[in-house]
């Protein structure tokens, strides 16, 4: 152990970490494959998440083609369609968004931003990635099993999830549940690292209130995930028992094809409670890192300190706490006691307060800022707009009286794609454009980036604005085709074709983004160590990309908060966190 001094305010971190404490890769395999360096693990997480995300993107095209041109694609059966929507939803929410924000950005940014050499448990961190990869492979395997993947909808509600009418009842649902269990085990290993690294491995001078909001967002989201994922774990294990062992935790007495099954007495509602006790915090597991990252992007690219830093931190913590007491707003139509509905509507609407504080603070940060419309900034701005749009429809759906008629319509689909589909994805894109220069040493091409941004941003609105209208008409979600329904006018069909065209175009714009990432790896403009002239520690590393151990011989020392932009009297318009104050002569 290294000597540490315990001062009045707690431990003061040592300036030097002894060499033996760091893990040193000895061969190609331990450097790039079974690597314990958080930066490599982050890249592994990101590549895996983006790859499986591409699968989900293709699935969304197939969904949209079917919706726009029903009965034109003989290759897509109703069962296939259900499998597509299920896998699209599950992959996007869990295997892409959660893994990329926490496993990808968390691993890369936490040690660099708090001035640590690595995560505190590097070996556990490495295992976390490999278990995640295993979870992804199990999930992918379900596509190739007899009967295909499960088609029960991403919520996996019993009893239908394990009855024989649902596609993938034989193997798909089993592999889905096993994959989720593996994911949770892998995530828990990673999550322990993120939390303890933030708690214990901050460099000298890095108090909690000097941390960039990105770290606050990822840290709080990880705490939420560590407490919420166990609920999904329990639900998955019990559902697996119902499916394989014939227990009746969730399965009521059911008649299937005129035959009484052995199940009896189980409670499908119990599963819904467990699922949404995880499912709602999950929204914030994705949103809080996005909140944090977007705060840093806006502050850096508007050359202005974040407005109301303290309030931003408190809002993150309050949103995190409240997210545990709103889960039943996903269950208004499950026949709950009206007083329950009232309680959950109240808590749901209360969340709007800290969230609105954050939005006001972002806007006030922009106010009279020196706004540079770089690609990361464009994506950050589009996040604010999209999050507000999606959030406003959330106020509608949070009220039981409005929710009941809108429940299970395309309105809900449009709402959650805006608020937790497009909005966080915009942040991911912005963050990739922002930190790619640090990860690779080269800038992404700006022209291609702007093309990618405008097509994605305008396309997202072309897709989801009309979808709200289709939902208001009463068109239900998850239907293979509507047929001739009196309440669906011709205009809805036309709109569906329009939405599909927009979705295909947006999808292809992502290919431009992928091309940009690969092309810029060798052909991009060299970035230098701090291309955005940012204050936070990750831009102050001695090497770019940061070398093994991040900081060379000595850890950085932090003298100020993360947002000293455009300080009056300073030589430049940013003062890095590790620059000491000049003593008055």
């Amino acid at each position, binding site marked *: 152990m290294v000597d540490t001094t315990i001062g009045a305010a707690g431990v003061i971190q040592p300036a030097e970490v002894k060499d033996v404490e760091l893990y040193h890769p000895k061969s190609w395999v331990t450097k790039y494959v079974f690597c314990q360096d958080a930066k490599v693990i982050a890249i592994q997480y990101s590549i895996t998440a983006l790859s499986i995300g591409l699968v989900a993107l293709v699935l969304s095209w197939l969904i949209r083609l079917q919706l726009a041109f029903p009965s034109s694609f003989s290759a897509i059966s109703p069962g296939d369609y259900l499998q597509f929507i299920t896998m699209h939803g599950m992959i996007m929410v869990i295997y892409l968004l959660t893994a990329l924000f926490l496993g990808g950005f968390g691993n890369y940014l936490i040690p660099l931003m708090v001035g640590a050499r690595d995560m*505190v448990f590097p070996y556990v961190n490495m295992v976390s990635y490999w278990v995640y990869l295993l979870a992804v492979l199990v999930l992918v395997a379900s596509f190739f099993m007899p009967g295909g993947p499960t088609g029960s909808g991403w919520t996996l509600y019993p009893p239908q999830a394990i009855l024989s009418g649902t596609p993938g009842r034989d193997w798909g649902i089993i592999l889905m549940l096993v994959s989720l269990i593996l994911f949770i085990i892998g995530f828990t290993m990673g999550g322990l690292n993120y939390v303890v690294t933030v708690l214990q491995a901050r460099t000298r*001078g890095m108090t*909690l209130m000097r941390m960039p909001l990105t770290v606050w967002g990822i840290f709080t989201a990880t*705490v939420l995930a560590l407490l919420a994922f*166990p609920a999904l774990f329990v639900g998955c294990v019990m559902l697996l028992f119902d499916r394989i062992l014939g227990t009746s935790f969730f399965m009521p007495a059911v008649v299937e094809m005129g035959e009484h099954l052995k199940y009896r007495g189980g409670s499908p509602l119990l599963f819904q409670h467990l699922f949404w006790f995880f499912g709602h915090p999950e929204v914030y597991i994705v949103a809080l890192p996005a909140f944090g990252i977007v705060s840093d992007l806006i502050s850096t690219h508007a050359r202005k300190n974040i407005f109301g830093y*303290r309030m931003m931190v408190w809002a993150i913590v309050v949103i995190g*706490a409240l997210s*545990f007491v709103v889960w039943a707003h996903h269950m208004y139509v499950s026949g709950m006691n009206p007083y329950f509905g009232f309680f959950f509507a109240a808590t749901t609407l209360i969340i709007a307060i800290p969230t609105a504080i954050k939005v006001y603070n972002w806007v006030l940060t922009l106010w009279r800022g020196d706004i540079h419309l770089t690609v990361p900034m464009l994506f950050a701005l589009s996040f604010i707009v999209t999050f507000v749009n999606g959030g406003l429809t959330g106020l509608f759906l949070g009220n039981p009286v409005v929710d009941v008629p809108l429940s299970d319509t395309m309105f809900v689909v449009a709402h959650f794609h805006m608020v937790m589909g497009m909005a966080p994805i915009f942040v991911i894109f912005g963050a990739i454009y922002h930190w790619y220069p640090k990860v690779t040493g080269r800038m992404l091409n700006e022209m291609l980036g702007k093309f990618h941004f405008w097509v994605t941003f305008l396309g997202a609105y072309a897709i989801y604005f009309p979808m709200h209208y289709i939902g208001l008409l009463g068109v239900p979600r998850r239907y293979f085709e509507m047929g001739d329904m009196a309440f669906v006018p011709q205009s809805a069909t036309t709109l569906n074709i329009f939405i599909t065209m927009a979705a295909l175009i947006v999808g292809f714009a992502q290919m431009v983004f992928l091309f940009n990432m690969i092309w810029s790896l060798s052909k991009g403009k060299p970035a230098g160590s701090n291309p955005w002239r940012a204050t936070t520690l990750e831009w102050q590393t001695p090497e770019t990309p940061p070398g093994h151990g991040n900081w060379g011989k000595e850890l950085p020392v932090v003298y100020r908060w993360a947002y000293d932009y455009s300080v009056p009297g300073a030589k430049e318009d940013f003062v890095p966190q590790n620059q000491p104050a000049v003593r008055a002569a």
Partner: protein
Amino acid sequence: MSITILFVLAPIGAIVAWWLSQQRLTAKPWLEVGAIDDFPGTGASSLPAATIGLGVFLAVVSSLFALFISAYFMRMQVADWAQMPAPEVLWFNTGVLILSSVALQYAQVAARRGRMEDVGYGLIASSP
């Protein structure tokens, strides 16, 4: 469900709230620029990281078990609940678990006092 949440999440929430209250969350970081040689404590605990990690892990495990148990209890309340047959080895197994925990604890105490021979005995006794 709501009762469990009260019992499990309330202590965890209390710990989190207590910890947050120790963290100078009302600090005004924009006014606090440090000079050279001025290193404020980070508020990190003096406990080793592994201990903190174990604590966090125990919180995760407790919420996992609490959710398992509460889901099980909720299922028990439904009318058709049938008692699980207790396997004959149940109490025997429980006894073995308790004894091996005692042996493990003995080995740990011995290790702390540097009595390596006793550590060996303890570990061997705890291994079945």
